[in-house]
């Protein structure tokens, strides 16, 4: 342990660096919150303040009055939850098999993940659009969910394979020696150990789908189906002009679900991320 002991100035430096990093990460969000509560004239002030001089809820009122934010948030929630659940349901068994039975299948899966990440949205969108149109899935949340599942599946698989590998196979063998069948071993031994990883993966899929803009923009045609990121762009005009106050208010509300989910599941995610960090 003595090798890791640090001097006081070094420790101070580490904390300062950490603090600077946190400030860097938090700055956009805090500025967004500040903007959401500022009246229009304050947004055009030459000396902007962190704390609004005359805080107002007018931006929130205007945002809700002008755009169907609740309906859009509902659509986003349905699409993101469904995408996350389906992606995890499909990826988990696949990841288990791929991780436990190393061979050509694992190599192929890994190759698929790497290749799939190389395609930009714009390259796949038109073929995808045509395929979904054939399936009558244009302008439907089901179609969007299908796209989100396919889009997040490779990375979800990649993540989960790491988590599965981190669960020692010896534990499963020990359960088998004690008389547990394959299903019992999976349910009672592997699944609990894998849970943090599954949660982290689901969260990743959820946030990816919740924030996704381009597919939703292209695939959803009617206002009733539009998701939150698409509706947020309705506060933007030409040449970078924006209705800043309502945009900030709506964007602030749009970030809340992700924050709440992260806050609630923080421990599990940390557990999941740490799993496999130390070789057993």
């Amino acid at each position, binding site marked *: 342990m003595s090798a890791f002991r640090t001097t006081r100035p070094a420790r101070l430096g580490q904390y300062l660096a950490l603090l600077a990093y946190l400030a860097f990460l938090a700055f956009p969000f805090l500025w967004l919150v500040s903007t959401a509560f500022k009246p*229009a004239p304050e947004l055009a*002030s030459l000396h902007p303040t962190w704390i609004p001089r005359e805080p107002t809820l007018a931006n929130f009122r*205007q945002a809700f009055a002008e755009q169907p934010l609740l309906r859009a948030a509902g659509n986003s929630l349905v699409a993101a939850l469904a995408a996350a659940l389906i992606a995890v349901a499909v990826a988990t068994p696949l990841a288990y098999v791929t991780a436990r039975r190393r061979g050509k299948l694992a190599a192929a899966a890994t190759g698929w993940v790497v290749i799939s990440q190389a395609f930009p949205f714009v390259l796949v*969108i038109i073929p995808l659009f045509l395929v979904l149109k054939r399936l009558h899935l244009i302008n439907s949340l089901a179609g969007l969910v299908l796209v989100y599942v396919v889009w997040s599946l490779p990375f979800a698989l990649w993540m989960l394979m790491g988590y599965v590998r981190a669960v020692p196979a010896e534990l499963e063998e020990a359960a088998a020696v004690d008389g547990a069948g394959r299903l019992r071993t999976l349910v009672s031994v592997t699944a609990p150990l894998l849970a943090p990883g599954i949660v982290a993966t689901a969260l990743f899929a959820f946030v990816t789908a919740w924030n996704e803009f381009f597919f939703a*923009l292209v695939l959803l045609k009617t206002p009733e189906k539009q998701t939150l990121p698409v509706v947020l*762009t309705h506060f*933007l005009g*030409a040449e970078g002009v924006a209705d800043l106050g309502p945009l900030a208010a709506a964007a602030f509300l749009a970030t809340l679900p992700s924050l709440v989910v992260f806050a609630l599941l923080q421990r599990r995610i940390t557990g999941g991320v740490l799993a496999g960090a130390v070789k057993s």
Partner: protein
Amino acid sequence: MSRARLLAAVLTALALLLTGCAPGGERRADGTVRLRFQSLAWQKESVDANKRLVAEWNARHPDIQVEYVQGSWDSVHDQLLTSFEGGEAPDIIHDASDDLADFAHGGHLADLRPLLSERLRADIPARSWETTTFGEGVYGVPFLQEPRVLIANRKILQASGVRVPTPRKPWSWAEFRQVARELTRAMGPGRHAVAWPLREPVSVSLNLGLSAGGRLFHREPDGRVTVRFTEADAVVPGTVRAQVVEDGSAPRTTLGSGGSDTLPGFFAGRYAMVPLGFAYRQQIVQQAPEGFEWTVLPAPAGSGGLAQGVSPQTLSIAADSPYKKEAAAFLDFLLQPRNMVLLARGDWMLPTGTAALADPSLRTERDGWATGAALAAHLRPAPAPSVRGYPEWKDKVATPAFQEFYSGAIDTVELRRRLVEDGNRVLARYQRR
């Protein structure tokens, strides 16, 4: 049901599922035609005006119902491109003339010539129709446009005693430079007469360049377009550069800014004038501190008078729409003079229609409407957007060249070399035969 029938039913259902769906408009079982109208209106007044007109149309035409869909300027090109390729584009499309060329050449937009009413064709001037004419066809109705104007701090201007320009007697570019020098001196240190927001330097330079007789793009006898940078083309860029680099009457800091970014400094009295699009007046009304007095001045004039280039907002009909006539009837309704006024006021822009432009509400001195209306007759099609290869010329050659020129990093000779030599190489690739 026999097995054979069941199998046939399942196969039919599958076939129906797998076949494509009808593009854009549809006819319901009761015979009602449904049209999708994608509007890019985004400000409350403008969205309200559009929705109101759609509701009015729907009430009057129960057999042709229009669905209002809000799009976004930010992503409209990519969205439309995908929709066109997939055969799912809206029937009626709101866009801008500088975005139409690719869609028109790609056959995605309907030629409106056989569809438009004589009234609408006659109401909009020929120079506006030019912005949406590609080859032989007309692919959009230009309906709203905005000149670039000088929005000025009235008190600073009055206190300085400089001559205030009007559309009848505008400043020349040389006079503008001189006035800016005087104003800057009078305003004191840390303040500037004019703040140029030049995040998009090419369109500003080209459009205002028309006032000095600049053209930059020339069609050769063989039909090809080439770039030439003449003395006239150098007037506007030269004036701006001199204000920034030599006179100090314009700050360097706003060169990379968008129009909105200059407003805090304008409201704080740091800048006396900001050249902005006419529609920025709405932001000024919303955001200006209490008691702030502002006025709208025409942009300076040159040998080309008050001419400047514009890319009007347009309404088009998708080539795939099965109900083009119905869509054209809706356009005709939407662009009746009374309605065009509503749309123009909602967007704080000028209507292209001559009847709408004559409306007293657009001729009032309040909020600078009268100045804008007086400039309408001088607006011309933006010089380049219909030139093939223009987007690449703009992004790869002209934008960095103008940015470096305005900041003082390169001189006129180098600017000319880049725009002409590098630029023509780019254009040539698009015009090979």
